[in-house]
């Protein structure tokens, strides 16, 4: 029984396929990381689960949350799930809050929207602000966003996300825009308060500190997935291997940490294995697309690493 | 969306180009003398060398429209020229010294001038120096100075915090040098957009002034005056109002589309948004 089950999720912008056939599941209380470089399709995957894709971008496939379909249904049928069953914290805290509205009201709004009486919502908003460790929450509630720092605003966003006790929290690079010291506090907070979590980041260290399981995306596909420990210590896909090599989590004694070339723009990925034009191990075999195979630790590579 | 912006740019450019070409052509050739009165041709129907017919004075409407394009451009160029010549330096100075008293003074004077709209200035100037195209152009130009000053200031403020300007200042470049070398080239696109929009406004202002009798002096053909003169024949000979009305509308539309198109084309912020 999983909280979220995604199967064959694809995202298209016109003729361009930006995310292809992504499948994964998140169990209740499980923390899953979704990593990849920018352009890998990880944010689109998250947005498609929230039904917040930009205009002209469409998702297909299925994603079920507690028995309700999230993908391919009109907004009117999913909007009552948003903010109640599944919440999201975005990357950019500076612009995610309405600048003309007091913080408390913005927190309370998500509760009144889902049926909490206005008065209760206001009180609980202050409590929530306290819960996300904002000092003097009552005062913060009366403040406007511009009066808060980036870290404080991201806490407000977290308070909004948690307000209705959702079953799943999606965080899209929630700490990227924050100072390093603030990042750490924020991560600890998320770790503490999150129910089931889908955590999107390009920062492997962050994933390692928060999540139990990880999905690695490249070129709109999940190329490897599995428990953090296994994937990070014994990466199988050559891309994961390169990614790890490029970070500090380099297994000792391996060669220079680089991936040659750069991520192609959307739609310019090669057919077959999407990584083959950058992969030092690519062979003609790689012109056919590898399937994601394996129980627990799965990968999609013809020439997996040791 | 991007495609439409380009279509607007093309359409605007084409309309403006048409006005310019017509105006230029009118210096060399018009089918008839646009100011020659001929009772025999009074209200002549279109046709037979008189493509759009003749007005109550027997003057060829098509020739009048051609020379009217010249007047329109003349008004726009001079008005926008005055506005830019005064407004841009003021705006740049204000933008380069954002905290100084000079900047404050410039912007306050700007606000004050802004309180004298073009029509009011034109009526006042017309009362003092007599109505006429030049008076109208000066009035429209002066009234448009604040618009240029504001745009120039805002754009300059943005340029002043860019790395290359900071570097130039750190290197000890003097302000006038920075203004010429870095600021002007970088705010140019915004100014072109503003010029295009102001041009459209100037055309409308000239038409309104001509209607009130403060615009171009007769018999110099002007679309605004043609429209005004055709009023009494609106019922019997509506074509006399139709053509200058259409000319004004198309010219204004052209400059507006051009301005919008250029803005979309030149402003990187908008371009990013359009591509998302």
């Amino acid at each position, binding site marked *: 029984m999983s909280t979220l089950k995604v199967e064959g999720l694809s995202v298209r912008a016109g003729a361009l396929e930006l995310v292809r056939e992504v499948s994964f599941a998140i169990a209740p209380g499980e923390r899953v990381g979704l990593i990849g470089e920018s352009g890998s399709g990880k944010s689109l995957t998250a947005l498609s689960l929230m039904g917040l894709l930009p205009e002209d971008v469409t998702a297909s496939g299925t994603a079920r949350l507690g028995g309700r379909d999230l993908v391919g249904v009109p907004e009117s049928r999913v909007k009552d799930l948003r903010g109640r069953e599944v919440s999201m914290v975005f990357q950019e805290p500076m612009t995610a809050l309405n600048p003309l509205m007091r913080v408390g009201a913005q927190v309370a709004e998500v509760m009144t929207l889902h049926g909490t009486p206005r008065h209760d919502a206001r009180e609980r908003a202050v409590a929530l602000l306290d819960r996300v460790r904002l000092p003097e929450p009552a005062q913060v509630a009366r403040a406007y966003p511009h009066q808060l720092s980036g870290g404080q605003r991201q806490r407000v966003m977290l308070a909004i996300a948690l307000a209705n006790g959702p079953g799943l929290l999606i965080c899209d690079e929630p700490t990227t825009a924050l100072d390093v010291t603030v990042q750490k506090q924020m991560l600890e907070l998320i770790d503490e308060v999150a129910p089931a979590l889908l955590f999107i980041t390009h920062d492997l260290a962050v994933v390692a500190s928060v999540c139990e399981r990880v999905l690695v995306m490249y070129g709109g596909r999940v190329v490897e997935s599995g428990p953090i420990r296994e994937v990070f210590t014994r990466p199988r896909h050559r891309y994961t291997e390169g990614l790890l090599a490029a970070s500090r989590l380099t297994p000792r004694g391996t060669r220079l940490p680089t991936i040659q070339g750069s991520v192609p723009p959307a739609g310019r990925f090669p057919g077959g294995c999407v990584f083959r034009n950058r992969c030092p191990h690519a062979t003609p075999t790689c012109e056919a697309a590898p399937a994601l195979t394996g129980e627990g630790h799965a990968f999609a590579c013809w020439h997996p690493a040791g | 969306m991007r495609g439409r912006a380009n279509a607007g740019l093309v359409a605007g450019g084409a309309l403006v180009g048409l006005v310019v070409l017509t105006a230029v052509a009118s210096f060399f050739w018009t089918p008839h003398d646009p*100011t020659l*009165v001929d009772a025999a041709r009074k209200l002549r129907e279109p046709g037979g060398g008189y493509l759009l017919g003749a007005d109550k004075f027997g003057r060829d409407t098509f020739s009048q429209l051609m020379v009217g394009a010249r007047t329109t451009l003349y008004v726009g160029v001079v008005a926008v020229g005055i506005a830019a010549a005064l407004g841009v330096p003021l705006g740049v100075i204000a933008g380069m010294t954002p905290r100084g008293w000079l900047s404050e003074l410039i912007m306050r004077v700007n606000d004050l001038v802004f309180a004298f709209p073009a029509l009011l200035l034109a009526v006042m100037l017309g009362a003092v120096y007599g109505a006429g195209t030049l008076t109208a152009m000066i009035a429209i130009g002066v009234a448009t100075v604040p618009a240029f000053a504001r745009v120039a200031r805002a754009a300059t403020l943005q340029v002043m915090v860019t790395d290359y300007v900071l570097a130039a200042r750190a290197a000890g470049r003097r302000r006038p040098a920075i203004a010429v070398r870095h600021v002007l080239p970088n705010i140019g696109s915004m100014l072109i957009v503003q010029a295009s929009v102001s041009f459209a406004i100037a055309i409308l202002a000239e038409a309104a002034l001509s209607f009130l*009798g403060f615009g171009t002096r*007769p018999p110099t053909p002007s679309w605004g005056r043609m429209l005004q003169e055709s*009023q*009494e024949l609106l019922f019997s000979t509506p074509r006399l109002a139709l053509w200058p009305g259409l000319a004004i509308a198309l010219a204004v539309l052209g400059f507006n589309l051009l301005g919008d198109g250029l803005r979309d084309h030149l402003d990187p912020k908008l371009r990013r948004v359009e591509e998302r």
Partner: protein
Amino acid sequence: MRRIGIWIAVGGLLLGTAACGGGDGGGSAPKAQSLSVGFVAEPANLDFTSTEGAAIPQALLVNVYEGLVKLDQEGRIVPLLAEKWEISDDRKTYTFTLRDNVTFSSGAPFTADDVVFSLDRVKSDWKLKIKSQLDVVDKVEKKDDTTAVVTLKQPSNGFLYSMTTRLGAMFSRTGVSDLANKPVGTGPYVLGSWRRGDSVQLDANPSYWGTKPPLSSITLKYFKDATAMNNALLTGGIDVISSVQAPESLQQFADPNRFEVIEGTTNGEVVLSMNNARPPFDDKKVRQAVRHAIDHKALLDTAWAGRGGLIGSMVPPTDPWYEDRTGDYPYDPAKAKQLLGGRTYNVKMRIPNLPYAVSSAQVVKSQLAQVGITAEIEPLEFPARWLDQVFTKGDYDLSIINHVEPRDMGIFADESYYFGYNNPEFGELLASADRGTEQEQSDDLKQAAKLLSEDAAADWLFLFPNLIVAKKGVTGLPKNAISESFDFTALAKQ
């Protein structure tokens, strides 16, 4: 009859002013009670003793203020407040016998004392130059309450005529404290209300001495824009256009079931003034060339839709001494060029920004260009700026203005007038005409008009037409506008 009039007047007052303009559907009422008439120029104030402008006497003279005599439609001088008058044999003493039942709208009775007061006041208080027309008056005396005697310094043919103008208006001794806003006269109408910038309403004078006017009120609505005035008539906003300023638009009123177009004549000579006092028009040949260069028929057809008449001098056909002088300078560009002797000129044509002037100027410019005279048109706001620059300072070469004053040929006799025309012979003819018998007067004035034309003191573009458009059923409109006033006394609606 009188009683009915009063009843209507009271009824009109009870109904208030809401009826103005909208009183079309008067099917049930026996008579429509109010009318609105569109005018071009609004009076600056209501005091024509100190303020210039044709709009004031146009609205008030005969209607609110009355003189001892007035001008009828044929231009004859007829009795008004004077029942009759006698002229002494030496033509220097005028004895006016006054009506005895006349009161001012203030209630004060009108007596010979008011005649003395009003005529003396011209000398003492009036601020207009035209008051010099009454300089010929030596003294004004009351013989008894209904008899006033005016003694002239010398015989004058112009005196009685002047008495039909605003100069002869009768004021109450107790009614001149606020002439600018509160006119007090003996006329059939009194000032009802004045909405500045919009309209003047005249109400029937309930205590009027004569035949009560058929209407209870008349609204004079002012339009600066000719098209707006046309539209107002088309949509029922007004009942009458007093003077069409866009003659090309008359076609709109062609439906005889809805409108009636009245075309009469006026005193208004549309003059192409030439500055005789400075080059190039100090040269008679150049002036003559101008007169030959202009195709007056074509000008009238294009500039004023062919409405109006052609004249060749400063006398309208309604004056007894009119002679057709249009043949003096036939359209002949070749002759004009020859008179100019190949020279070309650049001149300034400073015109008032009035429709007829702007229209005519464009034709004049085009036609003068054919003979080598380049005229730059400069429209000046009328009245102030034109009066200042052209009329007062004489800073112009050419101008175009409609001289509307009746019997105004005398303006050419004044060298300081903006024409700058100076011919002693002309002045002598006018003086002799004023002194002489009726026949001598007529002969002298004919001679003067001929002289003026031959000297090409100016060019006369056309005679301004009296173009009135009224809703069908409006009666009593004056066909010709030959006096200073727009006479409302007979105006009615069927």
